[in-house]
Every structure is written in C-alpha cells, then in structure tokens.
C-alpha cells in the first residue's frame, strides 16, 4: 500500500476508534471525578481516586449482584453447552426417522421472538415457584437453536471414519460423544460458551420480570436501580457502577474476539 493511502487509512481508523470508544472512555473518566468536576464539564479528573467505586459498593449490594450475574451467566453457559452439544450430536451422528422434522422444529424456534412469549413464560416461572431463583433466570435459556447449529456445523467436519473406528474399538455412543467428539470440538464449544456468557450477562428484560428482591438480582438491574436513585450530582458513582459491570464482558471479548468472530460467522452463514 502506498504511503499517502496508508495515512488516509490510519486517519480513518484512529478517528473512528476515537468516536466509537469515546462514550466508554468518558464514562471511565467520570467514574473518577467529584461532583464539582462533572458539573464543570471536565474530561480528565484532577486525581484518580476510587471514592466513587467505594461508594457504589456501599450504595448497592453490588458485590451480591456481581456474584448473581456470574452464577447466572456461568449456569446458562454450561447448560447451553450440554443441551446444545447433545442435540447437535444426535443430528450429525445418529440417522433416524423424523430427523428432518425435528430439525425443522429447531429452525422454527428461531422465528419466535422471546418477547412474544414472555407473558406465558412469566406465569410458568411463577407456577413453578421459580421467581427469585437461579433456575428461573437460567433454565429457560438452556436450549438454543443457534447454538445447536453452530456445534452441528463443527461436528459435521469430523470424519465419519472416526465414528466407525470407535465402534470397532468397542466404544459406546456416549463414550464416543464424551471422549472423542467434545475434545476435538473445543474451539466451537469455547465460542458458544463465550457467546452464551456474554449474552446472559447482558440480559435485561427477563431478570427485570422474574426478580423482585436482591436475592438473585443481576448487575444489569442494579444499574437501573442506581440510575433511578441518583440525582445529577452523583453521576460519578453511577459511572463507577457502569465500569464495574462492563469490565468482565469487555475482558472476555478482548480475549476471545478472534475466536468469537470466526465462530459466529461460521454458525451464522453456513
């Protein structure tokens, strides 16, 4: 690439990066500011004190919320990995009558938006007595058509000979699934796991519906509480809360960005 062309691209890259990351940067800066500094409209805080961070943990049971979010996200992640990998295994390695029909059923779930079914689901959770429980926040999300397709895509690349060889070696179906298929599919499992964790951590509407006390409430609802409690002068505390909430998922994304991109494109398009 020619030198002037490079300059143009670097300018575009830097400018876009600045614009796109500005809200996060700004929130980060504000989380260190005093009320007075925020009113003056400064961009850099005078000193980097963690006062706002201490205060947000006093104001809300934020630690409890963080643990809740972690338990719920990890729970959905593990549940999805188990349920989806089992289904994908059946679709790829077992030929049976009615497979196409069941596959069609899976596809059809993708056309039903979660929000269109939330009213009966809310009552189901109530009847199961799962309001304010981890089960209520996790179990409804274990089955995922997208996740099944993503894993199915990867399982299909595993040579059928491996299956035949395993049968000759006297491996049971489950042993083949557990000891051969899952280990060689690590990358797809990691992709789906990261995706599941990320989307669950960021979930908003469902936790809002099925929690009404601090017992299992997640950080996202904590942010809503924080924002509705605070008056304008306390924005530093609010932003400290925001930073605490986004750090785990940003870290996860930064580590797994390449992997996630590859996995999602495959799952989505092929």
């Amino acid at each position, binding site marked *: 690439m020619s030198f002037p062309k490079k300059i143009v691209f670097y300018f575009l890259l830097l400018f876009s*990066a600045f614009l796109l990351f500005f809200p996060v940067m700004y929130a980060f800066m504000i989380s260190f500011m005093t009320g007075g500094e925020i009113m003056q409209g400064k961009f850099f805080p005078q000193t980097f004190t963690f006062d706002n961070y201490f205060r947000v943990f006093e104001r809300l049971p934020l630690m409890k919320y963080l643990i809740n979010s972690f338990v719920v996200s990890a729970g959905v992640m593990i549940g999805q990995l188990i349920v989806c990998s089992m289904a994908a295994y059946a679709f790829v390695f077992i030929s049976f009558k009615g497979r196409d029909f069941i596959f069609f059923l899976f596809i059809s779930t993708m056309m039903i938006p979660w929000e269109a*079914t939330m*009213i*009966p689901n*809310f009552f189901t959770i109530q009847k199961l007595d799962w309001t304010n429980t981890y089960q209520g926040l996790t179990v409804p999300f274990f089955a995922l058509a997208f996740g*099944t397709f993503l894993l199915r895509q990867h399982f299909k690349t595993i040579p059928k000979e491996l299956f035949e060889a395993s049968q000759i070696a006297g491996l049971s179906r489950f042993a083949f699934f557990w000891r051969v298929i899952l280990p060689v599919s690590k990358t797809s499992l990691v992709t789906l796991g990261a995706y599941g964790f990320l989307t669950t951590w960021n979930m908003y509407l469902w936790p809002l519906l099925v929690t009404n006390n601090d017992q299992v409430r997640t950080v996202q609802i904590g942010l809503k509480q924080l924002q509705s409690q605070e008056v304008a002068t306390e924005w530093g505390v609010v932003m400290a809360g925001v930073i605490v909430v986004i750090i785990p998922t940003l870290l996860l994304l930064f580590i797994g960005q390449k992997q996630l991109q590859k996995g*999602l494109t495959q799952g989505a398009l092929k």
Partner: protein
Amino acid sequence: MKESSVSLLAKSSIWKKSLNARTALLYLFPSILLFSVFVFYPMFRTIYLSFFLTDQHGSAALFVGLENYTYLLESQAFRNSIKATILFVLYTVPAGVILALFLALIANEKLRGIGFFRTIYSSTMGISVAASSVVWLFLFHPSVGMFNRFLSLMNLPEVQWLLDPDWALLSVSISTIWLNTGFSFLILLGGLQNIDGYLYESAKIDGAGYWYQLRRITIPMLSPTLFFIITISLINAFQSFGQIDILTKGGPSQATNLIVYSIYREAFVNYQFGTASAQAVFLFLCILIVTILQFKFGERKVHYQ
C-alpha cells in the same frame, strides 16, 4: 403359538430398528422439552390469550374473539407505537449496517496494529444495553451532558435530546446504533475475511482501483453476510426494550413507546394480558415476515461462492 412368536420377532426387530431413533431422542430430549415448555407452549398460549380478557393472574376469563385486535387497531396508542417502531427500524437499521460495513472495510486492511482497532470496534458487543443506556443518558443530559456542552461551545441552541418528542426517538436510535455496531462489525469483518484473496490479486493485475474492487468484488461477495446482518438488525430493532426503559420510559408523549415496551407496560403495569398478548402476536408476525423474506429472497438475490 407360532403366530405369537412371529409377532414377538417382529416386535423385537421394530424395537431394534428403532434403536437409533430412541437413542437420538434421548440426546434431543432436553432441547425438545425446553423448547416445548419455553417456546412452543407459550407461543400458542399467547395466541390463545389474545382472544380473551384475562384476570390479574393471566388466566383467560372471557372470550372476546377478535375484539382485542380490533381494539388495538383503533387505539391511538397502539398505532403510535407501531409508527414509532417503524421509524426506529428506519433510523437504526440502514445507518447501523452502513457504519458497521465502513468499519469492517477499514479494519480489513493489512496494516500494522490493525488488531487494536478491531478490538475497539467490536468492543460495544461486550457492553450491555443497561450500561450503554446509562452512559448515553448522561451524554444526553440537558445541562451536564456532552452533546449540549458541545452545542453551546459552537454557539448553537441546546436540544432537549430525550425530552423533546421530535428528538427523543432519534436520540434513542443513535445510542442503539452505537450499541449494535460491535456485533455487526464482527460478523461483517468475518465475511470480508472469507473472501478469496485471489480475486483481488487478479483484479489488481487488471489495474482495478479501490472503488472498482469494492463495487465489483467486495460488495457482491459480501452480500450473504450483509443480508444476514440486515435481517438480524431488523429483528433486533423490533425487540429493543432496555434502552427505552432506561432512557425514556416510552415518553415523551409516547414518542418512543416501541412495541416490546408497549407489550411490557400493557402486561406488567396495566395487567391487560389479553391486549398485551394481541400485541405480542403482532410482534411475532412482524418477525415472521422478516424471517420468511430472508429465506425466500435471501438465497436468490445474493451471490454465493
């Protein structure tokens, strides 16, 4: 005696033949059970409830036929919500896809340090709708917010971003576009990287410029990914809720009362589960149409390798 042994034999062979189906069902059972309880049953239940008036516990109380639907179609509030949703889709989808495409194009160049930019561009995917909305709530703040500070710096009149009915939906759309950029960018970048580099090399030999390559190679080859991301963005736009709940609560004067927010309020604030279900059916139909259109035209109109 003979007969029974034959039938026994037949039975056992059916039993054997169905071995595969039975094992498959065992592996599929968790998915099927969960889909039945949390997707199929509630979908039918929603349709069923949309023909009834309900009590406070969401049980069907009085059959009213299509009255919930006719009520909705005549209701100013619902029409308003439809209008807001359509406008919201128009504001967010084209702009969001174009922005993400632009970012994916510049981040697909082979330059030093490009990994850093890719990470930054995909970063909003790791940010929740609640966190993003709280940050934007501050940016839009009438007095301390950055936008109005910037405007007054330029000697322009201040804007009541979230409080002015003419601006509120646009403001919410801006924050939504920002939030969705990360995901769209990541998918489009993946699509770009899947394009065979050989195509560009032969174009270069023919002396084709950047724009020519973009028009004749990149966009056609990227069309399946583009189409996919447009569909996902459309569906996402229809499903938006968190930003409304935190930024505007559907106001001012219902200018941002998007359909999911409207369903939420109707069901869990007003306890009108019948009309809420009718709205949910409407949402379902909208998304169904989008998905069917994708299946129908997506495959034909776009270029596959």
